[in-house]
């Protein structure tokens, strides 16, 4: 089967949905400029040429204006895929995301729908504190949003197509180190990630986790870049006879609790590895679910391995220190298995 990068898989999902449905439009900064980049990570390259500038809309650096315009267009039945260049910039549009996109349908008593996708590159890549955050976990606290965080090209394509067809606002987080360099900008320290993506049409429903590796001794839940570090760790641990089950939630809202709980019932141990900060974070939410619903199955305390509660520092030495690594995942597993 052919192998694509995440950037290519996302581009293909956009192209297919735009061909299929004239209501799908793109809104963002630097996404369709002739001779430009196709967005900060080249994802939209070639789309303005195919679909024209009426449907691939370049914007000023106005995140509030971008998200607000996407919301209004979505209410009227278009299916905008808006984007910000780095998810850190979502904070510039926070009112539109949290007070408007998430709530307008509810406070209208269900009169309107907001079929909006907001793409946002996440994760630390050596750029310092304002282009580095992992914010996907933060948004789970805002009812009315769906949160998607794919880790592989196959998942990215199938989930993006479902997100575009979904009638709700979806925040779609893409990890900058997973885009790959084939036809895309190479990120220093990026995972050279190519994945099998079938030629034929497929979608992946939101709210279904994927067991990326089966195992019996311990469950690790991880997403985005941390999923890949976890899989590397699991490979090494296997050589020492430790069998790790790795679950990729793929969507944070809706969350496939059942797959995680069932895994814990089998392995009796759970480690959550997360690039989001630890305090009040997504890993804490997973922990709480396990305590509420599967506490009796645990043979060891739950452990969270998260990014330290600090802004992301610049120097690679410092950045590497605060974000979970393969070695620290291995160490955490060994400690838990005593």
């Amino acid at each position, binding site marked *: 089967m052919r192998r694509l990068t995440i950037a290519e898989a996302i581009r293909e999902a956009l192209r297919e949905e735009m061909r299929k449905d004239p209501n799908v*439009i793109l809104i963002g900064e630097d996404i369709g400029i002739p001779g430009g980049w196709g967005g900060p990570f080249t994802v939209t390259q070639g789309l303005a040429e195919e679909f024209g500038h009426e449907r691939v*809309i370049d914007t000023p650096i106005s995140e509030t204006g971008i998200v*607000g315009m996407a919301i*209004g*267009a979505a209410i009227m039945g*278009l299916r905008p895929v808006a984007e910000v260049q780095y998810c850190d910039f979502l904070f510039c549009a926070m009112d539109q995301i949290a007070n408007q996109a998430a709530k307008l349908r509810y*406070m*209208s*008593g*269900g009169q309107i729908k907001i079929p909006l996708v907001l793409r946002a590159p996440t994760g630390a890549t050596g750029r310092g504190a304002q282009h580095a955050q992992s914010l996907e976990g933060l948004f789970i606290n805002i009812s009315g949003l769906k949160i998607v965080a794919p880790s592989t090209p196959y998942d990215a394509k199938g989930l993006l197509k479902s997100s575009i067809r979904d009638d709700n606002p979806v925040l779609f987080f893409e990890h900058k180190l997973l885009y790959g360099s084939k036809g895309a900008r190479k990120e220093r320290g990026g995972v050279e990630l190519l994945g099998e993506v079938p030629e034929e049409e497929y979608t992946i429903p939101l709210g279904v986790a994927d067991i990326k590796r089966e195992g019996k001794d311990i469950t690790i839940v991880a997403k985005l870049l941390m999923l890949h570090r976890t899989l590397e760790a699991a490979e090494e641990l296997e050589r020492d006879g430790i069998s790790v089950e790795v679950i990729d939630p793929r969507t944070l809202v809706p969350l496939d609790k059942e797959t995680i709980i069932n895994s814990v019932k089998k392995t009796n141990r759970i480690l959550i590895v997360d690039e989001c900060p630890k305090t009040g974070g997504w890993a804490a939410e997973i922990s709480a679910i396990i305590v509420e619903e599967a506490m009796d199955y645990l043979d060891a305390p739950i452990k969270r391995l998260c990014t330290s509660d600090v802004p992301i520092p610049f120097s690679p030495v410092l950045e590497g220190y605060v974000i979970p690594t393969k070695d620290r995942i291995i160490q955490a597993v060994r400690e838990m298995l005593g």
Partner: protein
Amino acid sequence: MIELSREKLLLLYRQMLSIRLFEDRVYQLFLLGMVPSTLHQYQGQEAVAVGVCAVLNRDDFITSTHRPHGHAIAKGVPMKRIAAELFGKVTGCCRAKGGSMHIGDYSVGMLPAIAIVGSGIPIANGVALAFKLRKTKQVVVSFFGDGATNNGSFHEALNMGAIYNLPVIYVCENNFYGASTHISKVMKLENIADRASAYGIPGVVVDGMDVLEVYRVASEAVNRAREGEGPTLIECKTYRYSGHSRSDPANYRPKEEVEFWKSRDPIFQFKKKLLELDVLSEKEDNRIRSEVEKEIEEAINFAIESPLPSPEIALEDVYA
């Protein structure tokens, strides 16, 4: 003066009267403890909502603010659905999920009102974008107050509306106060409409107490928008008779100022004009008043008699 039919003139009058009497009645009920929460009322500004919405078609859209009752009545949201929403009843236009500050009715072209100052303006752009891409000739009006024009949303949205030539009309209701703060403390310009030049779009100042002037200026802006000539910023100088919200006695406003604006009351002025033009007689005025009062009482009774929502519906309508 613009040429309007007798029927249209009387419609403008009746709508302004409807808003005034509805707001007065709701205030009485609020004082009786029958309306929960707070209220941001529209008395004094009626000529703006009515003058602008009278230009619009049913399938044109508006966005509104935390002070939306007047816009809702002018755009044609059924009064009984508005009243029921204020009372927190399940028959309200937003199924009791929205309340006073989020009145809206998609079927008549009013998005749920947006109570974060300035935030409706970028959303109006999106509505306009949909109209433009579909070449429907529909337009959208975004209502907001003077306070919103000091918010970043205003800047981002007007710039984007301008560069994309969107069919949107930005209607600023300058009532001179953002909550308790007078505009002179927060803006060096005398006219908010001057800000339009920063975006390369027309900006027009209009007497917001004169419904025919508002209608005339709105007509020009709406025509421009329908013809693909892009947005206009209209500043309507007007005044709210009440405080910012129901708990606000508005002690920060000089009595003389309030009296001055009340002497220019949009409904009184328009009635005078209609009497002079022989479009209206005192007798007909009484008839219109009693019809409006009857409609309001029916709406209030509908609200009072409507059931409260069953609590579990609080969990519905989050996702489509």
